[in-house]
């Protein structure tokens, strides 16, 4: 038997998304906080069940869009009115309607960058190494199996008690995750 500090956590395997969702809810209700669930496709309510509440991603995308829009407009204003002003028959240098298309494109571009790189950064991707992959059957998490993990750093984690608790969730099996 390994000492709790030498393992990453315990992993339970389920056959259906409903079982995983139910198990995640029960685990969260039992007071575990450092838990994670893995599924081959997004399951509605699962993130909430493992204790995730609100993503800050939309805010990041909004900020990206505002930055892109302001930057895009300023770029054109600076070029046409400050850096190289040309008087064409007395027409205004800051001809803002003509600057809208590029401003719009820059808004979308930077918002999209924020969405993609924000999502990757918040998810901690790329992750070159992760202990969950040490579970041999975890390869099925990208096919048709559903996994629930309670991490060893959970304050309530106790190898024996937690294992017993996980057995009550009706999993296919419960295995230890090598760190």
């Amino acid at each position, binding site marked *: 038997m390994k000492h709790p500090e030498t393992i990453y956590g315990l992993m339970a395997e389920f056959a259906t*998304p409903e079982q995983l969702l139910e198990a*995640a809810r029960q685990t969260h209700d039992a007071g575990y906080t450092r838990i*994670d*669930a*893995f*599924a*081959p*496709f*997004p*399951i509605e309510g*699962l*993130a909430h*069940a*493992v204790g*995730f509440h609100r*993503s800050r*991603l*939309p805010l990041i*995308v909004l900020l990206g869009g505002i930055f892109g829009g302001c930057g895009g407009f300023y*770029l*054109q204003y600076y*070029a*046409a009115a400050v*850096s*190289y002003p040309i008087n064409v028959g007395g027409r205004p240098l800051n*001809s803002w309607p*003509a*600057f809208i*298309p*590029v401003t*719009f*494109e*820059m808004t*979308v*571009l930077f*918002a*999209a*960058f924020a*969405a*993609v790189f*924000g*999502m*990757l950064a*918040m*998810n901690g*991707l*790329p*992750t*070159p*190494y*992760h202990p*969950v*992959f040490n579970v041999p059957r*975890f*390869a*099925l*998490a*990208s*096919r*048709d199996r559903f996994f629930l993990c309670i991490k060893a750093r959970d304050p309530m984690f106790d190898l024996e008690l937690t294992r017993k608790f996980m057995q009550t969730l009706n999993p296919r099996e419960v295995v230890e995750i090598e760190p």
Partner: protein
Amino acid sequence: MADSPSDKLASAEILNTPILGPGHDFASVTDKISAIVLSRRTPKWWILGFLVSFALVMLLMVATTYLLVKGVGIWGITIPIGWGFAIINFVWWIGIGHAGTLISAILLLLRQQWRTSINRFAEAMTLFAVSCAGIFPLIHMGRPWLGYWLFPYPDTMKMWPNFRSPLVWDAFAVSTYATVSLLFWFIGLIPDLATLRDRAKNRAAKMIYGLLAMGWRGSAVHWERHETASLLLAGLATPLVLSVHTIVSFDFAFAIVPGWHATIFPPYFVAGAIYAGFAMVLTLSIPIRKLFRLEDFITMRHLDNMAKVMLATGLIVGYGYMMETFTAFYSGNEYERFMILNRMTGPYAPVYWSLIACNIVTPQLLWFRKIRAKVGALFAIAMVVNLGMWLERFVIVITSLHRDFLPSSWHMYYPTRWDIFTFVGTIGLFLFLVFLFLRYLPLISIFEMRTLVAEEEKKEAAN
């Protein structure tokens, strides 16, 4: 193309056809789609198609190299027809790309589940079409190595691009479109790359897919953010795709040339783009479902829906042609009136009437359910529309330019062999990229198919 038994449905049954064949579960959709990529056996038709398209890519290389050596004089462009094949092909290709974004973004926001199985390769088609489109304005400049002058950077000449010019807007729009499409496509691919990583037997494949999947492990929280990001990107891509062809139409509409200077251009170009794009998606999906035996995933229902979108956008395009003609006469402007009469009865009249036959007359067949239920007929109509949309751009670019205000400068335009080589070469490049994509990446989004299976199971349980 012979119809398979599942295609021989009574026409009324199509609406009841599910968007997923019966008897599929999470494992079977995963295995069936990933097997196409991971199989060690490369189909013979793939090798043949790959070689032919590769040969055409070489033709493109030759045509482009000769162009760089000799200059744009090797093409048929003259004064006053300075735009020729390069711009016709640019607009044609960029239009084709639009259906991919429509399917991946707009239909996602509208919660159209049938998009799931066609969205991945339609998006790939967008990327490849935009790559082909991007080549043309670049090589048309005469000095393509100075192409970066289009972008603002603090240069030693202290000059800036003219931000009041649609051509500069175009550079921004097309490059933004290409970038956002690539990001959107890649985000959708990450979970599928993880599936391939977990299922690959070959060590090199495991490594490469593993690197690209970036350690994706399907965590619930990751999925949540992934979904948020996809929805936000769809929300961003929707106005973006409409803006791109709008700005492409500004390239024409901002000029005073009769036949270009029209306010109907933006909506009419966008509808034309979606029309051409769906024709190309049909052109690709009909052989693909046949060759990879994916009739369970790309069902008759999909083909029927795409045919209907084509019919609807085709009618909008028809309205565009009608208004162009009406406005020319209603304006009372003699140059406008001459332009439209010249289109219909001048030296390029056969092209104009072929365009009407391809884009307006032929698609009317799609009103009939019986025709929409025939795969071969759909393929033929889609090919006709592909051709028709190319002719449309020919008519817009060439007939407007070749006889403008001053009869003394009138001229005819004839493409040279180098125009044709370059155009055929980009078709080769497009097919070359499609073939690579079909063999090395999952052509249907696996995780979205699993979501679809879960939803179908829920529906069954509810019944």
